[in-house]
């Protein structure tokens, strides 16, 4: 039995785990369920030593367990299948699987490639991957890499297996294989912890479920004893009600952005779409389906190999984000606010104004008008309800939701006509999520901006989008022409979307 007791963990500006206690039993698949930012991944990272806890204790069979690094966790038979794929792209598949247990010939230091490849092939077969073990892993698809990660975890014969959203990048048939493997491991008496935010998976494969919300444990239930609706209530703290906004006004004939046959190898295959003024256009799909890839081609961060993009009827060819911002007034709110969205060591003032320095500077000497900077920062803090002690507070000291609002604010200040939101509510709390939803709605339907909303959060996209394009394997595979905004819209539209994935 693995027991975690009163585990707390804080990061700057956020209490990720607040005195969480859970018992995980052998021969059980135990789901950790919660919304984005609930603390699921953090708990996994505490157990595997990546982020040791601030306070609290862990026990294996009543023996105290101390892990202060990932290596220590491996040595104690704990292994992890990560959300982000931890692979060495130039190494072969076999090397990636066998990295920490390479075999040598006899007592020499010479690697026994035959044995290594043979052993790794066995684990590849287990996960149903029919690829030669000598292939460089960089050449595999995201789904295949994820399966290699799972094979690697199997190869380490762990007693505790942590899976952090392992299904987010793989297809239905692969999910099926994974679940079969997990059931097999369960029989062997392994402790399996399965992090997810998908309710269906909990009911399909798990025996127990612990729900986390805002870093706190809400409860642990046996799967037979709990209904879907109960779990949802535990997760979001209220009854599940997908509250669609009333359908907002869109200028049907005013096409502000049109893409025609956008192509780039491994990124986008023949993608075409139209965006109308005052519209929220949804790009739905899983990670790696080609949505962010398309966005980066549109804003000039990547270059398309063929295809055309028109803004206001004129063909554009932005060569950089600077081009798309200053010439075509297109903004892009990244999904990755810490790495790409914010200057964490700079204050709110700088983060708000960074896009408009050229507009608020004097003519000759290009001196930035400090007063205007302050005005803009104050206005954004008010308008977006950013909770901060002052406009001189550093971005890194804000909570996730407020950081996200700050990351959005620079495009509002720059008054962009078209704004692409890439997973705008990832890792933000429920309150901020609602706020951002309202903001996106108002931007489109009251201020006449045109919005592209990239999201893998189905309720979010159904709530906000006027139309939805469905992405899969770098292609647009379908379009939902008009998203119903009636009371039962969620069931109807989610079924429509699901029909594209069969």
């Amino acid at each position: 039995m693995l027991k975690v007791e009163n585990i707390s963990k804080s990061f700057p500006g956020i209490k990720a785990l607040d005195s969480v206690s859970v018992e995980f039993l052998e021969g059980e698949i135990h789901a950790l369920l919660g919304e984005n930012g609930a603390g699921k991944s953090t708990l996994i990272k505490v157990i595997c030593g990546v982020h040791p806890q601030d306070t609290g204790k862990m026990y294996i069979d009543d023996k105290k367990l101390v892990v202060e690094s990932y290596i220590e966790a491996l040595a104690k038979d704990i292994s992890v299948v990560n959300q982000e794929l931890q692979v060495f792209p130039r190494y072969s598949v076999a090397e990636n699987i066998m990295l920490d247990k390479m075999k040598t010939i006899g007592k020499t230091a010479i690697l026994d490639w035959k044995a290594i490849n043979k052993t790794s092939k066995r684990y590849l077969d287990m996960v149903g991957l029919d690829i030669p073990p000598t292939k460089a892993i960089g050449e595999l698809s995201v789904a295949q890499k994820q399966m290699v990660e799972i094979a690697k975890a199997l190869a380490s014969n762990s007693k505790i297996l942590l899976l952090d959203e392992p299904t987010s990048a793989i297809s239905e048939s692969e999910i099926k294989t994974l679940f079969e493997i997990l059931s097999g491991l369960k029989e062997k008496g392994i402790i399996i912890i399965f992090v997810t935010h998908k309710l269906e998976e909990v009911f399909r494969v798990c025996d127990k479920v612990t729900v986390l919300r805002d870093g706190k444990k809400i409860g642990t239930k046996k799967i037979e004893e709990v209904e879907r609706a109960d779990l949802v209530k535990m997760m979001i703290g209220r009854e599940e009600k997908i509250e669609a906004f009333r359908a907002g006004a869109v200028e049907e004939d005013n096409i502000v952005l049109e893409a025609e046959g956008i192509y780039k190898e491994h990124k986008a295959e023949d993608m075409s779409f139209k965006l109308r003024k005052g519209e929220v256009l949804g790009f739905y799909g899983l990670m790696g389906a080609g949505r962010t890839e398309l966005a980066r081609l549109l804003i000039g961060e990547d270059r398309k190999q063929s295809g055309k993009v028109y803004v206001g009827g004129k063909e554009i060819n932005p060569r950089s984000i600077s081009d798309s911002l200053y010439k075509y007034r297109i903004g892009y709110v990244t999904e990755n606010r810490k790495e790409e969205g914010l200057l964490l060591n700079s204050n709110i003032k700088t983060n708000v104004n960074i896009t408009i320095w050229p507009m608020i500077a004097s003519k000759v000497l290009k001196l930035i008008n400090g007063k205007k900077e302050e005005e803009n920062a104050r206005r954004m803090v008010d308008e977006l309800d950013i909770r901060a002690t002052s406009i001189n507070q550093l971005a890194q000291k804000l909570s996730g939701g407020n950081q996200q609002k700050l990351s959005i604010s620079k495009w509002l200040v720059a008054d962009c006509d078209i704004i692409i939101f890439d997973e705008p509510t990832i890792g933000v709390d429920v309150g901020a999520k609602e706020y951002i939803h309202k903001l996106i709605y108002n931007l489109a339907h009251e201020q006449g901006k045109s919005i592209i909303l990239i999201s893998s959060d189905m309720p979010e996209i159904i709530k906000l989008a006027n139309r939805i394009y469905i992405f899969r394997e770098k292609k647009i595979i379908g379009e939902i022409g008009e998203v119903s905004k009636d009371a039962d819209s969620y069931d109807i539209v989610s079924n429509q979307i699901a029909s594209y994935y069969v």
Partner: protein
Amino acid sequence: MAKKDYFKSILTNGNFGLFLAALILFAALSIASDNFLSPYNMYTTGRTLSLYAFVGLAQGIVLVVGDMNLSVGAIGGLATITAGYLMDIQGFNGTVAVAVALAVGIACGLINGVITAKFGINAFIVTLATSFVFTGINFGFTQGYSFVNIPLSFTVLGKGKVFGIPFILIFTIIAFIVLFLFFKFTIMGRRILAVGENLDAAKFSGINSSNIKILSHALSGFVAALAAVLYVSRMGTAPPVTGQDWLIVSFAVAILGGTSLNGGLISAFGVIMGAAIMVMIKNGLVMLGTNVYWEQTYLGLLILIAVGIDRVRTIYNQRRLLE
């Protein structure tokens, strides 16, 4: 602000620490040696400090965008002989010579910047290579001979003084005030800091990051050439070996001055203090009668201590954030 917080902020403020360190050194040297406070020693110290400040800035301004420039000395050498050649052999006046020398510095910096930023090659290896190219051109052209016929009028800035304060020090202080304003108020300065702090986030905020990197390298070349011109003005001669000892000085001054090796952080005041500490330590070593052959060891150790302090400060600030 509570009294305790105020005290804490002074402790964590790198500039104050530097000022304190410089003050302690100053006091120690004043007590240890009768000569240190003599007008002549103060005058030479002030002049050397000025040069060191610019040499350190030439490094700091690329460190701040997360790059480095191993060719600061080579660029300085090339600018030195350019100015010397134009005045000595061609008989041009100082203004023309300075303008061309600075242009040479900017051109060298642009070469570094374009190769680094546009082709994505590590600045370390690029500037290591170009430092040999620049030095080679220098020696090939001069065959090792100095240009000595520098007009007297040209040395006024480098040798003149008012109330015992060297002109060159006054010039330096004004230049660094401008630098302070540059980083605080101009688009370019702010963008350099933004790119240095987080290149991706800057790029995703509509800043053309690679152009900013090129700009930083060009500025580095400009400042190195400026240091060279000041050197000629101070010495009244233009030897091709100028700049050969700048590399270690440039890193020592920049790092002592609190320039972050991770980019994003530079302080005009800090660089001046870095130069002051550097010059006083050198001065002190001479007065203590240390063997000049050992000097490199002390300089190397000094850099290690400086980066050690930088590291401790970084870790301390991270810890403080977690509280």
